[in-house]
């Protein structure tokens, strides 16, 4: 097939997504410093103020500045999302690579388990886990790790199996290269592309799940400026304070959207097995 090489971002949509994602990441890094007000200080005299010059996104039912909460919350939301993914990446890949190297019935059993696990609705599984641990943002993070590991186990196991069956590994075997060196030399570099695609796409999914759990009440607890919890908090005021609900929702939406578009773009450019357009 003739495919002309393309530069990465193909359209203004993708450029916009990259810019938005960059802004969000920067906000997450500097979030607290940028906040014009204290995100937690209650001031009932200033409650439910609509967006204005002093409070760009208005104030919530307890008089807290929505913009400040949003900016501070960016850090919290993104950080918890990234911690879920980092832990899941390590645990999942360890299980997957281990499974591929050991092979046999252990491999079979682990992958069957991952298959079954993967099938169960992740949100409800996490809900159960978080409820069992006692509601907190930390519980929500561990709950998502608990329900998300099979994706990475399956993926890394598949890649490892592929690589182990390649000819140059047979050559490495005859030279007596130990397993851990094979992982470092061959498996990890080869897995990078596939994993980065999955990670980008999962940022949105995990973030939506965390905010969902917080919304239900098993994640971040209400005064915490986590975006999902902010929406839960604003629900009671939605008739006379739409801004409390709208802005955190938009923040979640644009973050998820831009990371999904970037993930989609990476898949098109990096994944040889994806559907390429003629």
């Amino acid at each position, binding site marked *: 097939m003739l495919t002309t090489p393309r530069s990465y971002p193909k359209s203004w949509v993708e450029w916009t997504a990259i810019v938005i994602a960059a802004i969000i990441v920067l906000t997450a890094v500097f979030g607290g410093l940028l906040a014009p007000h204290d995100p937690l200080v209650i001031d009932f005299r200033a409650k439910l103020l609509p967006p204005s010059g002093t409070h760009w996104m208005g104030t919530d039912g307890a008089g807290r500045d929505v913009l400040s909460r949003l900016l501070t919350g960016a850090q919290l939301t993104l950080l918890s999302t990234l911690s879920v993914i980092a832990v899941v990446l390590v645990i999942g890949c360890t299980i997957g690579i281990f499974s591929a190297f050991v092979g046999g019935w252990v491999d079979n059993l682990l992958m069957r388990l991952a298959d079954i*696990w993967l099938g169960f609705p992740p*949100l409800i*599984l996490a809900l*159960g886990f978080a409820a*069992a641990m006692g509601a907190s943002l930390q519980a929500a993070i561990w709950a998502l790790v608990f329900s998300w590991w099979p994706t990475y186990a399956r993926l890394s196991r598949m890649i490892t199996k592929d690589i182990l069956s390649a000819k140059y590994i047979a050559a490495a075997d005859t030279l007596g290269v130990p397993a851990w060196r094979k992982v470092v030399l061959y498996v990890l570099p080869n897995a990078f592309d596939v994993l980065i695609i999955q990670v980008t796409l999962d940022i949105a999914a995990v973030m939506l799940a965390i905010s969902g759990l917080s919304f239900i009440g098993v994640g971040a607890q209400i005064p915490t400026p986590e975006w999902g919890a902010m929406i839960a908090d604003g629900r009671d005021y939605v008739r006379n304070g739409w801004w409390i609900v709208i802005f955190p929702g938009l923040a979640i939406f644009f973050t998820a959207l831009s990371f999904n578009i970037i993930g989609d773009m990476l898949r098109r450019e990096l994944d040889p097995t994806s559907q390429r357009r003629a």
Partner: protein
Amino acid sequence: MTYILQRIAFSLLSLFVLVLISFLLSHIVPGDPAYVAAGPNAGAEKIAEIRAEMGLDKPVATQFFIYLGDVLRGDFGTSWFTHQPILQDIAQELPPSLELVLVAMVINLVVSLPVGLLTARFNGSRFDDLVRLVSIAGAGLPIFWTAILLQQKVAADWKLFPVAGRLSFEHRRFEGQTGFTLLDSLMQGRLDVFFDALAHLMLPAFALALLFTAVGVRITRTSMISEFKKDYVTLARAKGASEGRVMFRHVFPNGATPALTVFGMQFGWMLGTTVLVEEIFGRPGIGRYAVKAVTQSDIHGVVAVVFVVGLFFLVANLVVDLLLYAINPRKHLEG
């Protein structure tokens, strides 16, 4: 035949894992399950009593088999906020949730299958690009947020649909045998109740379906694209078949099979996602029950919902696979 047996064996294995997960959640993860089960206001005596009652003084393996036996008998314990056996609670809450999921699934299929087929046919076109962008956007919407906005705008402001609840006030005394209002009202010939129930379902079902439809369109598209590339499509065109015939008679039946497997899985996922919708719309259901159990720290209620959702997930997948096998056993042999 071996396929069916294998498939059933896999379901049983999955069921076992499900019980294991539930056991983990109710007995291992909480620091002291007896303390949790007893509720926040229980005294030390009560906790000790519960510990003995739950068999927590026995070895973990024994506890697991006791738990397995309990679950198989449908004994999930007693909810300490409804003071009913949890099984009875669930039986009550399940029909409205299933109703919601079924309507959402219909919305999902009605949109995903044709749009997926058309975007595959016009792969790479403007239309395809637009649908791709819309579905990526749809996958980024927080369901609970969309639900609140729909409720406020479409129901409260525009008054197109009821704001909350399962039935209007005037139908509040409606009762049926099955608990499925849509079905019961039809059986009793109460069309007014049927349409009232349907109107109450539309917004929550739409909010629930949005995310799944975004995924469904893309899954269908991928599956159909790989079919369009196959030679039998070329042969069908060479036979002089119209593009419509090629799409609906040839590509669709083949491309729908792998897509339907995913829709089968989505059924369970949707049931698990009702937790984000039901409470907002004030609908009874296992989702709202789970949220209530969480806020009341009733771990057994939560675990029971996890178990039931998992169970429905397994059953839905099994049914879809067996159905596809029954429709076309050959396709399965091909892999």
